């Protein structure tokens, strides 16, 4: 049994002042071999985030955070330096902040980690509204995955077996 939610009790996400520069490489996701599973994973993660978190948009108030955690690759750093923490995943998806924005997604600077951001999959949702169905969130996740192109082999994955 899944315990019932406690209505109205939500967390407010901390936002840092500035998003990433356009040329920042963002690790969108460490992924399994299947792109369908990666897409589903992204959609479920955004739903889980929206069930818990809001963020404050100046002049508009609180917005449900249908966010997906992503990590900036510091300038000059190789992918393996970011991917070491995701060594159990054979592939990864990456895109520049510019490409993500051009596709219509906002990149929010969330939390205390300066390299951590949330890609906002769906914007403008009132926190008091019911959660969107997974199918709707998945359509947005597919758009984000399309921005990244093909999954790339994770250089931190042991043995180099990317099955």
């Amino acid at each position: 049994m899944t315990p019932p939610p406690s209505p109205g009790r939500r967390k407010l996400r901390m936002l840092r002042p500035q998003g990433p520069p356009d040329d920042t490489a963002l690790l969108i996701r460490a992924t399994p071999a299947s792109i369908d599973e990666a897409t589903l994973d992204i959609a479920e993660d955004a739903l889980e985030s929206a069930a818990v978190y809001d963020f404050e948009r100046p002049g508009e108030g609180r917005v449900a955070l249908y966010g997906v955690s992503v990590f900036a690759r510091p300038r000059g750093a190789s992918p393996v330096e970011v991917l070491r923490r995701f060594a159990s995943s054979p592939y990864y998806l990456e895109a520049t902040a510019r490409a993500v924005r051009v596709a219509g997604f906002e990149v929010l600077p969330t939390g205390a980690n300066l390299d951590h951001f949330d890609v906002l999959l769906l914007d403008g949702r009132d926190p008091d509204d019911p959660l969107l169905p997974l199918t709707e969130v998945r359509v947005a996740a597919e758009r984000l995955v399309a921005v990244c192109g093909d999954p790339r082999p994770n250089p931190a994955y042991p043995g180099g077996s990317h099955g």
Partner: protein
Amino acid sequence: MADRPANPWYVREVDDETVERLAAIIDPHPRAVEIGVDIVGDPHREDDDGYNWTRLHYARNVADVTPGSVVVMGSRVGTYLAKVVAWDFEVSDGDPIVTLNLLPVTPDAVQRALARSRTTAA
């Protein structure tokens, strides 16, 4: 959570009565059982303090994911080792946020090290 403590041994403990209360109302999560992890969670997530997080109803066995426990967490993305730091009841009394510290080692590497430690020199 408040600011992340500098002490990596920090744990916010919960009392036995709370563990028993939640264990009585939360069934094993089917996906945790299916993929053989203590709790389903996404390794990408970070809260404001840099901790990973999931929800308690994703546990296979609530008593195995109490603060201080080392757990295998995972999802379609893979399996990871983590230490449970706290249960956060801010959003729910019946399904707290489980705050986790991802450990910078892989389950396979730990298994290999433990296997070596069990091997006595001839």
